[in-house]
């Protein structure tokens, strides 16, 4: 319990520290990216769905959690990737000059 609390508190500080360096223009991808990360709850859903000898309705609830968690993870990362794809640096090619 205490170890887990320690881990928790340290994670809070890391979270604050890392985020404060993200520029405003990347805040939407940031929101989307952290959104994907909390899809980690899928791990919890798998653990519960994987327990043997459960009542049928518990299995259903747990599998529903797996379904939601899966969508959170996959959708979250794909949306973030799509957003970030647009921030690629322009090559100085035949594009109209910006200077």
């Amino acid at each position, binding site marked *: 319990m205490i170890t*887990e609390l320690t*881990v*928790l508190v340290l*994670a*809070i500080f*890391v*979270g*604050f520290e890392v*985020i404060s360096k*993200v*520029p405003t*223009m*990347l*805040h*939407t*991808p940031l*929101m*989307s*990216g*952290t*959104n*994907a*990360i*909390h*899809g*980690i*709850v899928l*791990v*919890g*859903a*798998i*653990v519960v*769905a*994987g*327990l*043997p000898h459960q*009542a049928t309705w*518990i299995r259903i*609830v747990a*599998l529903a*959690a*797996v*379904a939601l*968690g899966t*969508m*959170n993870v*996959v*959708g*979250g*990362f*794909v*949306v973030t*990737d*799509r957003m*970030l794809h*647009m*921030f*690629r640096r*322009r090559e100085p090619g035949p594009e*109209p000059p910006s200077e």
Partner: protein
Amino acid sequence: MSRADAIALAYLVTIVTFVLALRFLSSPTTARRGNLIGAIGMVIAVAATFAQSGVHNYLSILIVMAVFAPIGALAAQRVKMTAMPQMVALFNGVGGGAAALVALADFHRIAPDPGRIPFDVGLSIVLSALIGSVSFAGSLIAFGKLQELVSGRPITYPGQKLANGALLAALVGVGVAILAGPQRQALVGALILGALLFGVLFVLPIGGADMPVVISLLNAFTGLAAAATGFVLHNDVLIVSGMLVGASGTLLTILMGRAMNRSLANVLFGAFGTIRAGAGAGPGGDGAVRSTTPEDVAIMLAYAKRVVVVPGYGLAVAQAQHDVRRLADELEQRGVDVRYAIHPVAGRMPGHMNVLLAEANVPYPQLYEMEQINPEFPETDVALVIGANDVTNPAARNDPQSPIYGMPILDVDKAEHVVVLKRSMNPGFAGIDNALYTEPQTVMLFGDAKDSVTKLISSVKEL
């Protein structure tokens, strides 16, 4: 090394990848790689979980994942860039729902032995059920508001805060009963249902303009719910990742509030965006709105030295970003210095405009943040406001009666000429009139932003 150690190690790798993913988000050049690293970390965590000795029923779990992964991917790929905010809300909601369901199922696992549930485990279950459900229902309402399935205006009624407060108190009571009494499954069910209702009631009175802040907050909530689940399952990767999101989401929410010069309490309980009679109009201007033609604006733009484009949500709705860039290219060929002024909350999410303009290949060095561009407006010949409203309203500077008074704005009214592209005279998200429109240097070009910009391009070409 035992199997448990190997799994713990794999989880540690996942945690590192998540921190790196967030770290890499500090620059546009590394951000995408960071996201990929995070995704790899997620795959590692899922694989490690399957390797746990207590996990069975592989087949059914894998089938469910195989069915729903493509659904999530497809939804994410198909969604238009303008609909990104509600998509994020939706994915956030399902995450919260997953946390609540895990809590429900897990309570059943632990509870068959009444009275034996350890306090810390019970508390974690109650928290993840409560927070996860609020996040799920709240996110769905936020989605509905942004998708305009639910009215974007705040929905209020007398005694609302009291009713919400009473519901929250009742939920806390149920939570205490679960912790204290012989554990009954029905109580957890009641807690989840009540929390779902609370999630709905909590978001309904918040205006559409504030939805990004709400989504960010609910994002933090889902993170907390995931962390609480981690305490139940004694799983470090859940605790750390959930808390990373909880902390970063909280900080982001505060930063967004600060960008609008409003406290979180004001955002959540202020019912901001109710249409108020008489607000606005304000000082400056003679009250008359001057409408103009694309030809006139084209001349103004083509002979300007510096044009600052101020994009807003109207640009996103009209999908006009590509046309705006073409117009800018056209002007630049004529030697006009074109810049873009990005208000921190332009559009419906911070950074929303950056994403859209990036999609249209606008080089990001041309995008200026509010603090950088504001001193430049007095030397600007034309400020071209495309579908932005509240973030340009000078009432925020000089009308203490205005609900947005004190919000930092783009000082477009200091430019020599202001051209506003707008569909109609309807008020913006904040539900107030914009004093800018009646200023003497302002002209309005009514119509859909995409149409207007297309006309501007052809008019400029003809010059």
